[in-house]
């Protein structure tokens, strides 16, 4: 028997899936092992202050622990975001309240929850490692869930009317409607917001793996604590190992999870005509062609999907009788009263507590708020000064963009909190203090938002406009005034809003630091929140948190909202 001439390529085509299948099984095995290890450790006896090794050999384990925390927190966020968005979109009476709540919760500095959450979780599971772990997970969760919830909510609200009517007229069951209309419609928004959220999650994870709470010293084994410990000891090789591991993990997640997800979510675009320029992902391509994956899909996903989407009975929905309506009303009223009572009681308690404040506390808090406010502005200005010209240059030049974007993306994806100890080390060696140093720390987190938005804005400026500027021989100043700045304005506003939010949050970790056995601190609202956390001064913590949340909300209302409106009306690029 002889092979046809094309046999080589045929064999290649056949062997590749085999390799992929093997890889898939490997991944499954590894995942099972990882889960078992983690569970064993979580269920183990509590060791709140783990001894963090500085050996690079400990890094894979630490990376795993950090990763598991992230994964669990992310999955929790996803489920919660979808449920929250769903209720907010469909419950007319709750909608206004829930959306306003989202707005406020997004503005509250997450890290000021840290003490409360930790103590609660530890007392919930006093004998298991689970408690401390859950604390850090809940913190990451509160940091990443809100924008995902908002994304899903606004997706649901923007489903085209005729698609909804199609689902109505063909009488989809609630499950079919959810799985074949609502969830697919929200997928793209959810994926992009997940990426942003997880990046934010790393930021908090790094901060909350190692912290002091009164006389408790919490240290969770993970990448964040490794880096802090390495920097604290001034161990440069260990710092480099830690950063390397961090970057490796982030790049791997990007390649193995986000890129395939983005490529996959392309099919959920609401476009009627196929467009070019889709993201490609070799990993997704391999997965789609792996027969092991197909086998698993046929036996698990497909039957489950069939079960959920196919209606069990097709009868006209009975209208709720008068009795049931009455019951539902009663339940709703009871729920409302209960919620109102809880809110009122807590507000009253908080108010009572605040009455114990001394005048000096208030004046110091206000002074600190002013200092942090100035720092936030300074960090935004510095970001603007370098990121706007750089972003425009990159955006206008596709060749530079191809080179610079991946580098900038990796640089941006390293959480600022992971870099803090390293930067601090440099500051200490240079003899600088935190007063100015904290601005640099805030800058680490905020500048990327501005850079990326400016790049996107510059790329969105139609080339005809730039050509017109060339033809009319605009001066450099004129070019910036009439073409570039108005063109990138909406993107710039978006970048600034995100960056200022990030800067406020970063102030909590940037203005107060345990370092090399000392406490480095400076006057600021963030420092006050951290030190109140340290010393267990709940009163001051509450006051500073409230002040910070109020500041953020006020700035949003007075500055960013009007700018957004301006961007939407005057500076919109329309065809």
């Amino acid at each position, binding site marked *: 028997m002889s092979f046809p001439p094309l046999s080589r390529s045929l064999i290649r085509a056949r062997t590749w899936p085999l390799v992929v299948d093997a890889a898939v099984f490997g991944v499954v095995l590894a995942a099972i092992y990882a889960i078992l290890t983690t569970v064993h450790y979580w269920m183990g006896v509590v060791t709140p202050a783990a001894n963090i090794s500085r050996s690079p050999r400990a890094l894979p384990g630490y990376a795993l622990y950090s990763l598991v925390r992230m994964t669990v927190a992310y999955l929790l966020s996803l489920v919660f975001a979808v449920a929250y968005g769903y209720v907010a979109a469909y419950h007319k009476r709750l909608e206004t309240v829930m959306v306003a709540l989202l707005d406020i919760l997004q503005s509250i500095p997450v890290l000021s929850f840290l003490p409360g959450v930790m103590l609660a979780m530890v007392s919930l599971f006093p004998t298991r490692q689970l408690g401390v772990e859950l604390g850090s997970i809940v913190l990451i969760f509160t940091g990443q869930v809100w924008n995902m919830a908002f994304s899903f909510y606004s997706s649901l609200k923007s489903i085209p009317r005729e698609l909804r009517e*199609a689902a109505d007229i063909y*009488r989809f069951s609630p499950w079919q409607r959810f799985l074949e209309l609502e969830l697919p419609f929200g997928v793209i928004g959810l994926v992009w917001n997940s990426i942003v959220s997880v990046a934010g999650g790393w930021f908090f994870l790094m901060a909350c793996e190692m912290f002091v709470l009164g006389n408790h010293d919490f240290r969770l084994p993970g990448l964040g604590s490794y880096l802090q410990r390495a920097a604290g000891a001034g161990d440069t090789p260990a710092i480099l190992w830690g950063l390397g591991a961090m970057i490796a993990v982030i790049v791997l997640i990007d390649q193995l999870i986000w890129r395939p997800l983005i490529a996959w979510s392309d099919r*959920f675009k609401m476009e009627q005509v196929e467009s070019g320029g889709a993201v490609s992902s070799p990993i997704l391509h391999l997965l789609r062609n792996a027969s092991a994956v197909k086998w698993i899909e046929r036996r698990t996903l497909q039957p489950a999907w069939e079960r959920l989407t*196919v209606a069990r009975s097709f009868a006209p929905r009975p209208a709720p009788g008068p009795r049931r309506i009455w019951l539902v009303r009663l339940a709703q009223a009871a729920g409302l009263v209960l919620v109102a009572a809880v809110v009122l009681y807590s507000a009253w308690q908080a108010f009572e507590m605040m009455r114990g404040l001394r005048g000096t506390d208030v004046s110091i808090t206000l002074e600190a708020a002013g200092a942090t406010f100035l720092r936030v502005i300074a960090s935004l200005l510095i970001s603007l000064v370098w990121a706007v010209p750089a972003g425009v240059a990159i955006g206008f030049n596709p060749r530079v963009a191809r080179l610079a974007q991946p580098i900038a993306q990796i640089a941006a994806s390293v959480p600022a909190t992971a870099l803090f100890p390293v930067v601090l080390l440099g500051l200490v060696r240079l003899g600088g203090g935190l007063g100015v140093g904290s601005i640099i720390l805030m800058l680490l987190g905020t500048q990327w938002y501005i850079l990326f938005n400016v790049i996107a804005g510059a790329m969105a400026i139609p080339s005809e406009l730039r050509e017109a500027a060339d033809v009319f021989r605009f001066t450099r100043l004129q070019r910036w005034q009439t073409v570039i700045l108005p063109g990138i304005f909406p993107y710039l506003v978006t970048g600034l809003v995100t960056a200022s939010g990030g800067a406020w949050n970063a102030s909590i970790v940037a203005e107060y630091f345990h370092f090399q056995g000392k406490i480095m601190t400076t006057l600021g609202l963030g420092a006050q929140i951290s030190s109140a956390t340290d010393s267990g001064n709940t009163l001051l913590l509450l006051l500073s948190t409230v002040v910070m949340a109020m500041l953020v909300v006020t700035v949003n209302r007075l500055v960013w909202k009007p700018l957004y409106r301006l961007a939407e009306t005057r500076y919109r690029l329309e065809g």
Partner: protein
Amino acid sequence: MTQLPEPIIELRAVEKFYGPAEARIQVVAPTDLAVYPGEILALLGPSGSGKSTLLRILSGLSTPSSGQVLWHGHPLAGPCPNVSIVFQSFALFPWLTVMDNVEAPLKARGVPAHERMRRSLKILDSVGLDGFETAFPKELSGGMKQRVGFARALVVEPEVLFMDEPFSALDVLTAENLRGELMELWQGKKMPTRAVFIVTHNIEEAVQLADRVVVLGKNPGRIRTDFRIRIPHPREHLDLRFHEAVDYIYRVLTQPDLVPTPQPEAEAPAAAAPAARAKYPMLPHARPGGIAGLLELLNDRGGRHDLYRMADDLALELDDLLPIVEAASLLGFLTVQEGAAEITPEGIRFAEAGILRRKELFKVAASSHVTLIRQITRALASKADHTLPDEFFRDLLDEHFSEEESVRQIETAVHWGRYAELFDRDASTGRFFIPEETAPASGEEFAG
């Protein structure tokens, strides 16, 4: 009149209005309408006459503000038990394949997998989509997409097939082709459907397809005429009876105040509701440029032209032409009689003038004939700083129109005011103002 069979769906004194009780805006005036088995019923009307609203009430998607919807004589709550809709925008689920799109309604009915597959393949075959089962909607052309829309609608064997302007998103040839195939299915009884209800703004489409045509008027939506077309199929556009029917509908549509006399060939099953007068004159949504273009064309053609032929010449849909004609007639530039437009002396002057002179003529015509324009100029002139916020005029309009329509009224008024150089509006502050050079002395009356 012969005894009519029992209707499948019947509207009794159905009304629809929006807004609070004391200031409600009527979208549909009390209307009786029934869908009988065996007929194709076409609903025609200008935009804003509540065509889509009536379709949604009939299919049970939306509930009327008052009145009754009967399904086989029984009152209905929620979507009708067995109807389908073919949508203008196709409304296919872009993330599902052609096959999954067609299977989706069957899943909702709990049909098991193999049975779903059998029925879907059969229906895809009959609409000519063989071999496209695994394609995604975005890979298909507009005509193919609407075929999927038909397949999805027919696969559940609906008693009534509703169609909401199903061909208006397609190009002329594709639409003609699909209409032909639809008629073939219907005439050959290959469609498991007892009645078809089609909403359209294309008069020829209605005459080509329908056994019965209902023409709606606007402000509020109401039935103006309801008649049968007894031309045998296939109907030819060159047929004299075809032409007469089209012409009759044109006459009704272009003369909002006419109480139509039944067409000679037609027989009206129900008396048309008396025309209710609108309280506040509505600005037709036409741009000054469009009005000028129409008048030039009319002047070139000797001053008088059939609207029906004009629409053809310009390749415009009725919905696009009518507002321009209405606007020109509101400004006193032309008059409409018996489905033909005739230019007035004022109109001739406008058509033959240069750019600046045109603006002046437009300014005079708009400030003397158009209530809203006059109101805005007067209000602005009476303010010392010659500016007023949007809300001022929104409040005024909201008493007469829906919120959406008020916004459109203001948009159109701004176009007209800018062209006439009477007033302008700053989009970022949302304020109306009188441009510097034309600002009159405070309190002075403007041309009126």
